[in-house]
């Protein structure tokens, strides 16, 4: 498994760095941004709830002032005096009627100028709390009217009347905010209302009646005081937690219709929110997170126990929408950065690996006989060192190779000369022995003639040995590798061994063989030797059978020659390849014993190995591996 190259590693590394850095940075920035946004939103919410509270408060204050103002106008006292004195004001003789009319004028003025007032009334305690003057309008936006005396109602039982009567002068009773009812039924559409009432006393301080103003609070409750870019949800609750204003209109004043739902069910931090006059909390509520700002507005006296709270809510999602937009933009930027980083990484690594690849090419192209290693330009320092080290190693190799080649040449020359010069005396002995035998044999006795025979035989063997030695030393000297069709070569070998094959009735099993670039003569001799041996060393009485096998293994070819002959004992399987080694008596099997040494030399010349395994039926199997030769790597030997 190849390790990833420099390009890959660098690209991966750079990408990883960019991605990690950008992710960390953007995460940090975005979370910080979210925090800032939420804080800012909280501030905004506070301001809004403040704003709303102020608007409401100011209106309520105005209501209180108006109530007190109305209570203090002269017609009030005038009427009281007149009423107390049989309908005529003792001070200036004005009738109660007139005082009443003047009162109506004033009240009309008030309601006319204050479109949010629904009713302005002067109620006396007498006669069951009968309304003395009443101006009203039915709904916001309607015209006001002054109610006819016949239609004035008795209001003594109304709680606001009773409450107001308990107050001192100058104090104003403020009611709860409720929906207006007509004849006991909730007026539709619903009209939230707040009543202000102040007692009226005569000059002696005795209670006479009350002034009541009804305020339609809806505008003041609901309208928002400022434009905000975010969408806020706005609630108003009373001190019991009942909704007066709710984003879902059905929830507003739901308590008037019997709903028991209160805000503490909807706000996680309700108690916190309601405990202080103002509070801002961030809620993590049912997996939706939001910021809640609540501002409490008391209604009436501080100890009245009545208040409403303006609650403004903003969802985190809405707040952080900006950040999310930013996230997608950042993601795009990161993607672009990653691509740029990858490109830079690739370019960088290319700049590094290219000279290294060039160096690799230069080494590959190198032929040991050629000129020096072409060191490419622009190698980074480490690769430059590698190139220099390679160069030195190659020079050393070349020098060594030259030495070895010189040594080999010397040895070959030595072998050649030695065998050449050895031949001559052997030849002389042979010739003269023959001469003696022919010409003077008769002069010798039997022993003498036999002696000459031995001499002659010995010469013959010596001659053959020297010949074989010479051949061995000359193996491959003249060979230039060429494409050899092994099938054709095999046919030639079989032809050469024909007589032996026929004589021993040998059979040869040859598969389809390849065509390889090898030394032709030597390869042929190799096969001829092995097959010849297989025939020669057959079992007596058994026809020799020979199997050839050929198997490719990558760039290498593995051949085998198996026979069913005598076999070679394991302890001799190395020895047989040594030159001049013989395992049989020289009398029984002729041959100089050079053949297998030749075979090994041929195999080794092709970069391979040869060894022996068990053949069939106790025979021998020669196995050898060879590689094709490069026809360009050989020079002609002279």
């Amino acid at each position, binding site marked *: 498994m190849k390790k990833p190259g420099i390009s890959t590693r660098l690209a991966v590394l750079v990408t990883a760095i960019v991605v990690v850095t950008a992710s960390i940075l953007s995460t940090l920035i975005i979370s910080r941004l979210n925090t800032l946004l939420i804080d800012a939103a909280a501030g905004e919410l506070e301001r809004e709830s403040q704003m709303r509270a102020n608007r409401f408060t100011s209106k309520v204050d105005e209501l209180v002032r108006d109530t007190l103002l109305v209570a203090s106008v002269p017609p009030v006292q005038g009427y009281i005096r007149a009423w107390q004195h049989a309908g005529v004001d003792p001070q200036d003789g004005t009738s109660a009627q007139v005082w009443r009319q003047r009162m109506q004028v004033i009240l009309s003025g008030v309601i006319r100028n204050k479109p949010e007032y629904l009713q302005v009334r002067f109620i006396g305690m007498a006669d069951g709390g009968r309304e003395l003057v009443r101006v009203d309008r039915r709904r916001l936006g309607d015209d006001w009217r002054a109610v006819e005396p016949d239609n004035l109602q008795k209001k003594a039982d109304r709680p606001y009347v009773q409450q107001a009567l308990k107050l001192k002068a100058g104090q104003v009773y403020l009611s709860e905010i409720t929906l207006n009812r007509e004849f006991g039924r909730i007026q539709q559409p619903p009209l939230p209302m707040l009543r202000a009432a102040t007692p009226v006393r005569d000059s002696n301080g005795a209670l006479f009646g009350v002034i009541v103003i009804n305020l339609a609070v809806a505008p003041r409750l609901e309208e928002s005081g400022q434009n905000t870019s975010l969408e806020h949800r706005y609630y108003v609750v009373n001190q019991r937690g009942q909704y007066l204003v709710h984003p879902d209109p059905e929830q507003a004043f739901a308590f008037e219709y019997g709903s028991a739902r209160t805000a503490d069910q909807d706000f996680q931090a309700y108690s916190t929110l309601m405990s202080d006059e103002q509070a801002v909390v961030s809620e993590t509520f049912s997996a939706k997170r939001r910021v809640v700002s609540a501002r409490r507005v008391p209604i009436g006296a501080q100890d009245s126990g009545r208040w409403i709270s303006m609650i403004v809510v903003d969802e985190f999602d809405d707040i952080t929408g900006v950040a999310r937009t930013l996230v997608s933009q950042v993601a795009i930027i990161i993607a672009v950065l990653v691509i740029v980083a990858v490109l830079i990484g690739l370019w960088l690594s290319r700049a590094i690996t290219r000279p290294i690849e060039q160096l690799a090419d230069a080494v590959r192209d190198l032929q040991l006989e050629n000129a020096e290693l072409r060191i490419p330009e622009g190698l980074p320092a480490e690769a430059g060192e590698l190139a220099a080290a390679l160069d030195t190693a190659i020079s050393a190799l070349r020098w060594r190779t030259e030495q070895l080649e010189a040594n080999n040449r010397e040895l070959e020359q030595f072998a050649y000369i030695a065998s*050449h010069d050895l*031949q*001559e005396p052997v*030849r*002389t002995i*042979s*010739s*003269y022995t023959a*001469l003696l035998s022919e010409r003077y044999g008769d002069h010798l006795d039997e022993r003498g003639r036999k002696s000459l025979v031995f001499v002659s035989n010995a010469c013959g063997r010596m*001659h053959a040995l020297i*010949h074989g030695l*010479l051949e061995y030393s000359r193996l491959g000297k*003249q060979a230039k590798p060429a494409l050899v069709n092994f099938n054709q070569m095999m046919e030639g070998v079989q032809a050469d061994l024909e007589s032996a094959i026929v004589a021993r009735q040998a059979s040869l099993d040859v598969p389809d063989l390849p065509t390889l670039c090898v030394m032709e003569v030597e390869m042929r001799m190799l096969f001829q030797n092995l097959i010849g041996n297989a025939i020669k060393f057959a079992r007596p009485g058994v026809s020799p059978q020979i199997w050839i096998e050929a198997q490719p293994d990558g760039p290498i070819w593995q051949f085998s020659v198996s026979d069913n002959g005598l076999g070679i004992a394991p302890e001799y399987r190395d020895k047989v390849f040594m030159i001049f080694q013989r395992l049989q008596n020289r009398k029984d099997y002729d041959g100089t014993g050079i053949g297998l040494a030749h075979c090994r030399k041929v195999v080794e010349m092709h970069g391979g190995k040869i060894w022996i395994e068990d053949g069939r039926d106790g025979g021998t199997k020669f196995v050898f591996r060879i590689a094709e030769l490069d026809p360009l790597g050989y020079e002609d030997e002279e």
Partner: protein
Amino acid sequence: MDKLNRVLLVDDYDADNFLHEMLFEELDCTHEVATALNGQEALDYLTSAVDGAYPKPELICLDINMPVMNGWEFLRAYEKLDEKFRGGVVLMMVTTSLNPDDKSAADGCPVINDYISKPLTHERLIELLDQHFPGRFDFG
């Protein structure tokens, strides 16, 4: 039988000369057998007049490995010799292994008529004489 006028053996090895001399004499195919121990001696012999005549042997048997002047060097000089000094058939004697290097060199040289393996044998000599001097001998 038309004997050769003379045979020149050029060989530094006395054992070979002795044997070859014996063969020629047994065949009785030449009037004279001369020997030279090296190329230089052979040249001297060829260019020395005896009784006013140059020897001009009809057959020269030439060895290769000789001191002073070997077979090749002799041939180079022999080629340059004037016709009046030169002999007839030139046979190159090569060793039994018939070294391919020598053989190819021999094939390239026009002066050499044939090459023979040492040692010369009775039968081989008859073959050669019949081949290079056809009709002159009848060895039966």
